[in-house]
């Protein structure tokens, strides 16, 4: 799923500075799963913002709504009756949802309430960790199902750097396993360590965002 976390309240308050009527929109898909922008979070942030504004001597009227998915036009339509009542929308969706609303309703200002951080898995309750960078050129076959693009701080393709800590953690974060240590362990367990002898050539980053704006076109699906 896509994960994200609330922006600092102070930043949100500053964004909404000039607005009196705001629509706070949640997204019941990824942002609900990662507890950043589902209905619970919308119903927490709305009263919190009212208080935060009041502390600063201002009042704000906040409408709330949580959509099934903010990245689908059909669901976004549900906002149509509320939009005329507000000057701004604060979206708790990932960056995709924020932009979809901005695109659909150009007459209102749209603000992000969430910093979208990565494509991640919920490893344990309350703990999410990155798994994919959407590089467009998946190499998981070569790395025994563990991604060094997403999970190595240096995105190394040919083995671990010299910075692996003695306990096997990454030099950049003591809480994170060196993914190359995990890859080597997986390869050894499969009896295929020699597969890691091959030199992986420089990656074609043109398949990722570095190659320009990504589009995917499927003529067979088009109307």
């Amino acid at each position, binding site marked *: 799923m896509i994960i994200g976390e609330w922006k600092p309240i102070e930043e949100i308050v500053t964004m909404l500075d000039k607005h009196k009527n705001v629509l706070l929109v949640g997204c019941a898909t990824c942002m609900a799963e990662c507890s950043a922008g589902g209905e619970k979070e919308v119903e927490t942030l709305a009263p919190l913002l009212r208080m935060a504004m009041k502390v600063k001597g201002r009042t704000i009227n906040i409408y709330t709504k949580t959509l099934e998915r903010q990245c689908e036009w059909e669901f976004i339509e549900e906002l149509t009756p509320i939009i005329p009542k507000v000057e701004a929308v604060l979206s708790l969706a990932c960056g995709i949802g924020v932009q979809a609303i901005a695109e659909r309703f150009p007459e209102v200002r749209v603000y992000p309430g969430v910093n979208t951080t990565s494509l991640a898995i919920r490893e344990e309750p309350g703990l999410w960790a990155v798994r994919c960078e959407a590089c467009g050129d998946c190499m998981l076959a070569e790395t025994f199902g563990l991604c060094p693009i997403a999970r190595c*701080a*240096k*995105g*190394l*393709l*040919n*083995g*671990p*750097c*010299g*910075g*692996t*800590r*003695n*306990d*096997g953690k990454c*030099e*950049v974060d003591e809480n994170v396993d*060196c993914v*190359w*240590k995990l890859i*080597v*362990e997986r390869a*050894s367990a499969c009896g295929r*360590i020699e597969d*890691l*002898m091959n*030199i*992986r*050539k*420089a*990656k074609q*980053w043109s398949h990722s965002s570095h190659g320009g704006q990504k589009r995917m076109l499927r003529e067979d699906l088009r109307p």
Partner: protein
Amino acid sequence: MRLRVGTRLENILQEGHFAVTVEVGPPRGANPDVMRKKADLLRGCADAFNVTDNQTAVVRMSSLGGAKILLDEGLEPVMQMTVRDRNRIALQSDLLGAWALGLRNCLCISGDHQKAGAQGKLKGHPGAKNVYDVDSIQLISILKNLGDKAVQEGGDSLDEPAPFFIGAAWTPFAPPEDFRVIRLAKKIKAGADFIQTQAVFDVARFKSSMEKAHKMGLTEKAAILAGIIVPKSAGMLRYMNNNVPGVDVPEDLIKRLKSAKDTQTEAVKITIELIEAVRFIPGVKGVHLQAIEAEEMLPEIIKKAGLLPRPKIA
């Protein structure tokens, strides 16, 4: 035997001399005299001088600039190049520029992550966007092809080849330890001519890593220079043991330095003993000495280790 590039370092190794390289850190500023002073201090003490590339991700004079100053002072530099800050376009362009200026040795490394700089006393640039377009092994391949085939990574040809004497790093003790020698093999397969290792304090452990490398035939294919850091104090050893990945300092050594009457004298003694110990490990072709912020200690150490004068080459 024909020399591939013809640097002094390559010559020394080819002729079977025990090589000495030392590390010279560029200043956090633009004053060339800092490099010139270090050159004066170390002239004649080593066969080649590594110029670091923004180590610990703290901005310093570029390794290219620093290396050129050393070259002008008559020292042979090893330009270190990390893949942290430059993509393959910038790396190759800088390599061509470096070659044009007369730099011929290049050490290819991943580089410390930009967050590393924020861990010490300095601020560094932890908010920087890193590059890591290619990794250190791919950089070795790039250098190999610039030299052997006069071809860029993307496939375009060069007007003429730009051969470098290619170096790589080896951290034999970091986890996953069994893979470290395989990674060394990959670097050599990619084209590394010489290897400078992470600091060795545990000689017995290093010896066993060298045996693995020797068995794989790696010591014949590339010249391995054992990395030795001058231990300035017991506290520094303790710090490195606890915080520098891949550095393993035996407890006895820490105690020895701690109980020494004169730390500096003992530090020199320990360094010399380490040099002598690694010297006779089969496959070790030289030493790479680092005296972090204490380069003035090096001439005495190298002299007392019986490594002066450095051999002349034809």
